[in-house]
């Protein structure tokens, strides 16, 4: 039972992981994008639409990333270049996504999508316990294992990451350095949007294998919360994403095992757990917040 929950944690947490990594990149550059909920949603629909039309799920993922990036681009224009409030614009972005996906998504609702199947990795997949938990998933999960350290490296070991983090801590320093903080933030936000789009694609193409309206159901908001308690660090964000994957999976596992727990209590659990964890951790985490987070240039 525990192994099933852990395996489900990875499977269910990966879409949130991608989105939260994207949000980490964006917030490290100083921009809170609550619209991640919307970018995920648009990414999910775009990935399904392209997969259905072309029959190629990889093109679907690419489309998801592209759609997420495009929507984040709108957000970047409004907040970074026009000085609009980040929270308000984020919520507007969610509405935009709700509207766009209902405008373009109606014909894809319900149908099954030929997405990513579970691929058991040779050798690794046969390991006791670990094999089942980590190595019997879809390809996008395996890719995420590599993406987490890659994002860490980009943020903390590359020149790009240094510029990006400076844009989030002391944007005015970048100016002195001859780099436009607005440009750095824009790149970060759009990259973050692409990540959230991939998260949506994973949700639709690997987990649900279908499109339904509003299917992200708050995962994007959870991703934003995760970044806080992950202290803006990819590895901790990953741990958080799996914790929430676990809480999402818990319900179905308990039911299969005949444990009677109210469905709605279980459905509320990921959100309650997020709040509880924030309460426990936030005092410690706050100091890690980028200094210019949420502030306009």
């Amino acid at each position, binding site marked *: 039972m525990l192994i099933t929950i852990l395996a489900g944690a990875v499977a269910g947490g990966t879409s949130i992981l991608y989105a939260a990594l994207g949000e980490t990149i964006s917030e490290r550059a100083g921009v809170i994008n*609550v619209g991640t909920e919307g970018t995920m949603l648009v990414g999910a629909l775009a990935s399904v639409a392209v997969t259905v039309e072309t029959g190629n799920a990889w093109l679907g993922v690419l489309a998801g990333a592209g759609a997420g990036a495009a929507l984040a681009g*709108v957000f970047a*224009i*409004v*907040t970074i270049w*026009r*000085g*609009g*409030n980040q*929270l*308000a*614009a984020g*919520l*507007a*972005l*969610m*509405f*935009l996504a*709700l*509207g*766009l996906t*209902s*405008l*373009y998504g*109606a014909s894809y609702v319900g149908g099954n999508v030929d997405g990513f199947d579970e691929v058991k990795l040779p050798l690794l997949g046969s390991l006791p316990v670990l094999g089942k938990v980590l190595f019997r998933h879809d390809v996008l999960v395996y890719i995420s294992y590599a993406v987490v350290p890659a994002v860490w490296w980009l943020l903390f070991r590359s020149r790009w990451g240094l510029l990006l983090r400076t844009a989030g801590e002391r944007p005015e320093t970048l100016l002195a350095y001859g780099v436009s903080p607005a440009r750095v933030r824009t790149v970060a936000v759009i990259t973050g949007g692409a990540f959230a789009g991939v998260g949506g694609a994973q949700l639709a193409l690997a987990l649900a294998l279908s499109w339904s*309206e509003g299917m992200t*159901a*708050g995962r994007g*908001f*959870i991703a*934003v*919360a995760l970044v*806080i308690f992950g202290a803006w660090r990819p590895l901790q964000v990953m741990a958080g994403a799996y914790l929430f994957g676990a809480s999402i999976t818990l319900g179905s596992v308990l039911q299969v095992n005949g444990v009677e727990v*109210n*469905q*709605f*209590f279980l*459905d*509320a659990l990921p*959100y*309650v757990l*997020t*709040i509880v964890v*924030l*309460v426990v951790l*936030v*005092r410690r985490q*706050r100091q890690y917040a980028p200094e210019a987070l949420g502030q306009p240039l």
Partner: protein
Amino acid sequence: MSAGTVDAGRPSLLQRIDAWRLAKGTLIWIGMYVAALVIFGAFVATRSVDPIEMYRAMWNSTLTGSYGPGQVLNRAAPFILAGLAVAVPARAGLVNIGGEGQIIIGATAAGGVALALGTSGGHVESLVLMGLAAAVAGALWSGLAGVLKLKGNVDEAISTLLLNYVGANVLSYFVYGPWKDAAGNGQPNAKPLTEAQTLPTWSAINGHIGIIIALVVAALVSFALARTKWGFQLRCVGGNREAARRAGLSVGLLMLSAMLVGGALAGLGGMIQFSGMEGQLRPGIAATFGYTAFLASWLARHQPGKVVLAALLLALIAVAGDSLQISSNLPGAAVNVLMAVVLLVVLSQRRTVKAA
């Protein structure tokens, strides 16, 4: 303009500048809304819908005839209250994205009271009790986020957002479980409200009296924020928390009070929607009303009077959306695009004329 005299030169120049500014402001304002309409029109055009025809249908379904305007006012009532629920905390520098959950919890509490009353209770008595329960429940829901903010330093924007989902599950728990109407053909609905528990309608506006309640409350909120000590202190806290603390204000209590009032307003909005329109508790009763109201408050830059106008505008768009399905065969949710674009365009517009 009094040309000829030398003295008249200065004031008339000033007047001209003001007129020019006003004209510019108005033009920008019109331009923004036209831009939003054009952008949304372009989107629906890609779905082979004629935008002009669509806008005509939207116009006709909301502003003409006897049915449409009443519907807009019915919709505007919860939008106004939930919009004020954003504006009041905003005065103290707090972000309440929890209107959705507070509406749901408010409606749930009102539903509980209605069930408890059953067929007993007079009309006024029932409605007052339901409204009170809704306001208290909404205040508790937002107060939770307020306490988390003060005691746990948890960002209230995030906690109110997450509580929306918890609230939706609380409602679902009741309507699928203990409150499920046995006579409801298995539908997850509570027992329908009785006549005495339903907001009266007023033929002059072709709708229920929720809009009157909302307008009265908006006037009270406007007065409280602009003319009372409490409103002034909230503004101090919102302006500079540290300075307010040093000036001896109890910053924590003030912030909490702003959250509580906000939640109470949204909760009341939930009761009005429930009692005036729905008549029956069901999942999805708030249907993004709370988020829409959040947009309304931002459109209005959190000024209570303007929140009323923005809520009316968004109610107009939302009700027009209901007609899209029939007139253009588009999903009603497509108007979310229009709402979003309006707000994005407005947010993109740096303030050119400082508000007084």
